[in-house]
């Protein structure tokens, strides 16, 4: 599109434009109305009256020749009874004087400015901007459309003067380009909408509309063949032009009220306002009343603004910048105006008598403009000295607040930086925002995927806290520094975006926050890491505990071995020796009797061994359950005890099976203590079921003891019991005094979160 259309369009523009400008230049535009009276063309109306007076031309004079040719042969008169342009005319005054008038452009300044100079300037300016956009463009399709639009507008404008002279080519060009520029604008808007991701409310079939300029072209050609139809055709073109304009405006209005984005608002304003004079002062009156309030030249001057107002769509994608400047200006102007009125009224009352109106208005104007300038100066000074800024909607504080809020929720540095870059990119509407990390041990950047912008390491080394620098194609802002890395935020501006003071201040503050955030986040990260380590250490068991357990096990094994060695092993050795004697005995008479004796010894030894095993592993606990095991234990105790043993054993339903072993051991320990130390006459032991656990109550009427003493002395295994109970989250209470017996109460509850029996039993 770019290479295909641009150069043909430029060449066409150059050729047509050159011709049109030449026509404008070749003959001044004089516009003298004439009427045919008695075979003479008599002046009936003079457009440039000042000039006519100066040249001694007046209504009623007869024109003989125009540009050395008889007036009858003048081409222009075929369309209208007007002499539109000429270099030289000869007129016959009613008194018979023959005056030959040379007309120069400078003779009539109005036509010189409006018809020649401004169009020519506009023509050249458009050409220049077209080239500028072409070589500077970002969005090819949009830029091309914009260039085409500007070129056609320029042609329409330049040709308006030429068509005013009833020049054939001028008319054709003017009519075609008038419609063409609107169709291109429509096309441009459609594309721009999709570019800014706004819904297009009109038909997408823009190509169809390109028929209209073609029709205009055909009509223009017809107009030159049938001059009489010229006025009608002109009105037809104007009507189509008007319809197209209404379509475009309604599209903008509808979508503005529907989506009300700042881009649309500016688009609307930039099209609407320049068109208003042309629409209401020229086009509408011309259609309805066949007259106009403002000439097409003057009213179309406003249209010149349109193409330029569209340039922003190419140069800055950040439309709100413009909005920002407009609101700020409006704000300052309103303030200045109010104060100026106040000041002027005061001045009038105080010194109105001595001052003329001119002085008063001069003073007012001076006050007004000084105030506006003052506001701008104040803004600069405030920013430099106190970091205070004008803000359009308080946006700035709010944005900062939300950005800080969003960033503050992260706990990892990488995530934090990512979010920060995202926030900055969102708020400043920049695309290329990323955090650059510089390792100054190795003097190198840590590469980031997809980012190709390179920065001079010196700048990175040099940049200090709170600094934002504009270099080559990017802004670079210091972010954070630690022992190994320096981090900087890089904002690509590509020479098209200039950050405003407000935004720089916003960024600066945010950088300061983020710098603190990073520090804090690092601390949090370190703490988390430490916690993780601790947890890992916790997962693997504590080494000292393992060692202790191992030592305890070894000690226990050693004791077992020693006991077995001292008792059972010796007996077995003895038996083996006896058997050996028998095997080698020569006298076999009483061998039967001796074997029987040995068998008896062996059975006794076996019983001892069994008792030993039963001590190590409580019998029946696995097979017949806790109650049977406890009953057996109690029976055994009763066999040996000198006291009356009263006991009750509830049936327990415990979730944790290992509890049974603990209960058994507690019973064993308590009863052994009773046997060995209590010297009691009666002992009571009870196992009671509780809501979600059990209770053991032990009572004796024996000698008792001092509780502190036994705990310190570590005798009676009291401490061991206490520790075991605590390990199962239980309570152990002991109450005893010398000669007052002993009372022990043990309560163990199973975790309520695992066993919630009562809640269900209702």
């Amino acid at each position, binding site marked *: 599109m770019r290479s295909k259309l641009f150069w043909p369009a430029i060449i066409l523009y150059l050729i047509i434009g050159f011709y049109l400008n030449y026509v404008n230049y070749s003959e001044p535009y004089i516009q003298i109305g004439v009427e045919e009276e008695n075979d003479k063309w008599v002046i009936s109306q003079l457009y440039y009256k000042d000039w006519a007076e100066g040249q001694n031309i007046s209504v009623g004079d007869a024109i003989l020749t125009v540009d050395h040719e008889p007036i009858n042969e003048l081409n222009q008169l075929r369309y209208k009874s007007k002499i539109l342009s000429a270099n030289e005319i000869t007129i016959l005054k009613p008194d018979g004087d023959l005056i030959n008038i040379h007309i120069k452009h400078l003779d009539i300044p109005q036509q010189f400015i409006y018809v020649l100079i401004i169009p020519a300037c506009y023509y050249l300016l458009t050409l220049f901007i077209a080239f500028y956009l072409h070589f500077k463009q970002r969005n090819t399709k949009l830029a091309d459309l914009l260039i085409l639009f500007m070129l056609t507008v320029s042609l329409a404008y330049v040709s308006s003067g030429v068509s005013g002279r009833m020049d054939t080519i001028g008319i054709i060009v003017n009519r075609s380009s008038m419609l063409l520029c609107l169709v291109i604008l429509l096309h441009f808007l459609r594309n721009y909408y999709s570019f800014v991701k706004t819904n297009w409310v009109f038909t997408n079939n823009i190509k169809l509309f390109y028929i209209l300029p073609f029709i205009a072209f055909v009509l223009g050609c017809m107009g030159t063949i049938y001059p009489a139809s010229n006025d009608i055709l002109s009105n037809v073109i104007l009507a189509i032009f008007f319809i197209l304009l209404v379509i475009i405006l309604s599209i903008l209005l509808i979508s503005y009220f529907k989506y009300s984005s700042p881009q649309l608002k500016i688009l609307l304003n930039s099209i609407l306002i320049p068109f208003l004079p042309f629409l209401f002062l020229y086009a509408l009156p011309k259609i309805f009343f066949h007259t106009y309030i403002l000439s097409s030249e003057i009213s179309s001057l406003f249209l010149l603004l349109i193409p330029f107002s569209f340039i922003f769509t190419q140069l800055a994608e950040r439309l709100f910048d413009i909005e920002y400047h407009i609101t700020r200006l409006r704000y300052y102007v309103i303030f200045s105006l109010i104060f100026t009125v106040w000041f002027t009224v005061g001045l009038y009352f105080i010194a109105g008598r001595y001052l003329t109106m001119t002085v008063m208005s001069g003073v007012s104007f001076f006050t007004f403009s000084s105030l506006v300038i003052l506001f701008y100066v104040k803004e600069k000074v405030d920013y430099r000295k106190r970091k205070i800024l004008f803000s359009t909607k308080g946006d700035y504080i709010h944005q900062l607040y939300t950005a800080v809020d969003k960033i503050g929720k992260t706990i990892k540095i990488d995530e934090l930086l990512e979010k920060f870059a995202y926030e900055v990119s969102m708020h400043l509407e920049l695309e290329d925002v990323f955090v650059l990390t510089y390792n100054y041990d190795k003097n190198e950047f840590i590469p980031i995927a997809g980012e190709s912008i390179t920065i001079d390491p010196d700048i990175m080394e040099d940049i200090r806290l709170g600094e934002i620098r504009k270099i080559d194609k990017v802004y670079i802002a210091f972010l954070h520094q630690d022992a190994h890395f320096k981090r900087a935020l890089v904002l690509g501006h590509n020479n098209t975006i200039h950050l405003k003071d407000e935004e720089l201040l916003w960024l600066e503050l945010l950088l300061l926050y983020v710098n603190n955030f990073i520090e804090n986040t690092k601390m949090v990260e370190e703490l988390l890491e430490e916690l993780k380590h601790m947890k890992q250490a916790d997962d693997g068991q504590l080494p000292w505990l393992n060692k202790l357990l191992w030592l305890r096990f070894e000690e226990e094994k050693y004791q077992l071995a020693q006991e077995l060695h001292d008792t059972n092993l010796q007996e077995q050795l003895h038996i083996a020796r006896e058997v050996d004697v028998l095997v080698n005995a020569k006298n076999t008479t009483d061998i039967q009797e001796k074997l029987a004796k040995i068998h008896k010894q062996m059975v006794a030894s076996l019983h001892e061994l069994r008792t030993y095993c039963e001590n190590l592993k409580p019998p029946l606990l696995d*097979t*017949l359950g806790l109650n049977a095991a406890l009953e*057996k234990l109690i029976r055994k105790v009763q066999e040996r005890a000198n006291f009356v043993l009263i006991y009750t054993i509830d049936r327990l339903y415990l979730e944790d099976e290992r509890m049974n072993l603990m209960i058994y051991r507690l019973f064993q320990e308590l009863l052994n203590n009773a046997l060995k130390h209590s010297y009691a006459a009666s002992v009571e032991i009870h196992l009671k079921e509780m809501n979600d656990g059990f209770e053991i109550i032990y009572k004796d009427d024996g000698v008792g003891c001092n509780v502190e003493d036994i705990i310190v002395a570590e005798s009676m295994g009291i401490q061991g019991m206490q520790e075991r109970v605590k390990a199962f989250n239980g309570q152990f209470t002991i109450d005893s005094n010398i000669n007052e017996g002993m009372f022990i109460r043990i309560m163990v509850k199973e975790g309520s979160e695992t066993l919630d029996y009562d809640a269900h039993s209702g």
Partner: protein
Amino acid sequence: MITMLIVDDHPIVLEGTKNLFQENEDIIIDTESDATCVIQRIKNKPYDIYLIDINMPLENGINLARNIKAIQSNASVILYTGDDITDYYPLILERKIEGILAKTASKEQILRTVRAIANGEIVLPKNFLDFLDDKFKLQGAKDIHLNEKEKKILRLIAEGHTNKAIAIELNIPQRTTERYLTQLFSLLNVDSRTEAVNLAERMNLL
């Protein structure tokens, strides 16, 4: 002809016990050292008598006895243990086993017991009567009185809940539920849910 399977996890004991029967041709002996294989094995070839060790690592003899009787109701089980045999007398009353032998028992005692049981008789030491005395004394002293938890479980059984449903209702693992039920059944001296419920209704336990 008597067929008998000896189950013991100690190969030496297994061999020794088998040797006791060597001279008796009317008793045919098979041995098994893995308690968990027994059930599968006897499905194909049932035996008249099972001589089972109690303390075995993978499955204890009492459980094995119950499982055998579940699939072969006419099986006779003799527990053969190094433990104090008096502890296991209740199992005889509960008809869970037919006899009990100490591992220190003489060859004669063992042969006599096996033959007697094969003939439908029971041979027991004299102190079994002491056990019975105690048992009746205790029984007379306190009737079965169920605690709240046992009543709750029984009610749930009576309502036809599965073990799983009971586990959910009591908020405990299913394995624990099974343990509770075993304990409750042994208290009531019943073998099944239906029996337990019938007994509870009959005795107005609920």
